[in-house]
């Protein structure tokens, strides 16, 4: 998104970047960081976060007040997001996939598109569903492939679609 992201007021307070010792404050701080991270990735439509890179991003390093959240702090937030089901550790080291929209929500969007285009009972390629011109205006256009696959897995669970392959080509059949 070209629009700049507006940080909440708390982001300008130095204590926010220090993991608080007092339990109550600590929990409140964690909650606010989680919300902030989700808002941030949602705004920029990021799906994956590399911890080594993001530690230098404006999200965790407020240059104006010269405060940054430590790597431990960032991990602390990511663990909480994983615990809540909003994120998942990626296979690669130090990388997190963040679901600012859950796979179930993505699944709904994809299925709604299929219904609106009367695609029940038909087969389409993965490319067609995710990258073709037909879906350019859709929210899930060029969605991170892992998140997309997870969404398809949800649809399979809900008996709304079948993912299959033929000669290394992946296709989706809506039921």
């Amino acid at each position, binding site marked *: 998104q070209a629009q700049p992201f507006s940080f909440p007021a708390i982001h300008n307070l130095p204590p926010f970047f220090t993991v608080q010792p007092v339990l109550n404050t600590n929990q409140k701080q964690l909650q606010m960081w989680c919300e902030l991270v989700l808002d941030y990735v949602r705004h920029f439509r990021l799906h994956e976060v590399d911890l080594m890179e993001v530690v230098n991003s404006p999200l965790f390093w407020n240059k104006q007040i010269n405060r940054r959240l430590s790597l431990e702090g960032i991990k602390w937030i990511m663990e909480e997001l994983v615990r809540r089901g909003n994120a998942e550790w990626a296979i690669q080291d130090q990388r997190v996939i963040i679901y600012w929209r859950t796979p179930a929500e993505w699944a709904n969007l994809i299925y709604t598109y299929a219904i609106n285009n009367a695609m029940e009972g038909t*087969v*389409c390629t993965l490319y067609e569903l995710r990258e073709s011109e037909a879906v350019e205006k859709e929210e899930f256009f060029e969605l991170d492939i892992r998140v997309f696959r997870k969404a398809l897995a949800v649809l399979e669970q809900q008996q709304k679609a*079948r993912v*299959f392959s*033929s000669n290394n080509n992946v*296709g989706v059949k809506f039921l």
Partner: protein
Amino acid sequence: TGVLNSMGGLLSLFGEEQQDGISQHDKVVLELKTQRDNLSKYTKKINAVINREVEIARQLLKEGKRDKAKYCLMKKKFQEGLLEKAEANLCNLEEMINTIEWTQIQADVLQKIKLGTSTLKELNSQMSLDDVEDLLLDTAEAVEHQQQIDTLLSGRLTEEDEADVLRELEELTREPEEELELPEVPNHKISTSENTRVGSNSSQAKKSERQALYS
């Protein structure tokens, strides 16, 4: 074309659905659509190359390198030829895909009609004509029987009803006599000549009348 050649053998397979709900047909359609996607990506790429060659040619002309520019445009011409062929292939593929989908629909319709016809046949076999005739006869007999009972019952009822009706009639004719208390209708004549005189004469008329009564 490789895919299209192998189509002959695959098309003869009846598209039975396998356990996971994916039939052989589905796989074939997937392969066709993948080919279509690949061709589509290819045409996009060629278009990009063509545009780039034109830009380069323009730039070269600005620099006065006419021969090099001409060479660029020749390359572009060649690319355009490729593009045309690719687009023709794409057309064929789309047509094939559409035809398969349409044929599948037709096959489905035919299958459903077959099912409908066999169901109809079975239902018909459950109702033989003889059975129906027998049934109608039974029904007619039962109806006749019912009507006979009806006439019997209705005959008896009318007699009872008649007695009731007569009783009610008598009650009705009696009631008006008891209720009305009208005064007796007078039957003596009223003297008309004395009545026409008004004022003082009237008391004299009454006097003479009283006298007439006492005499």
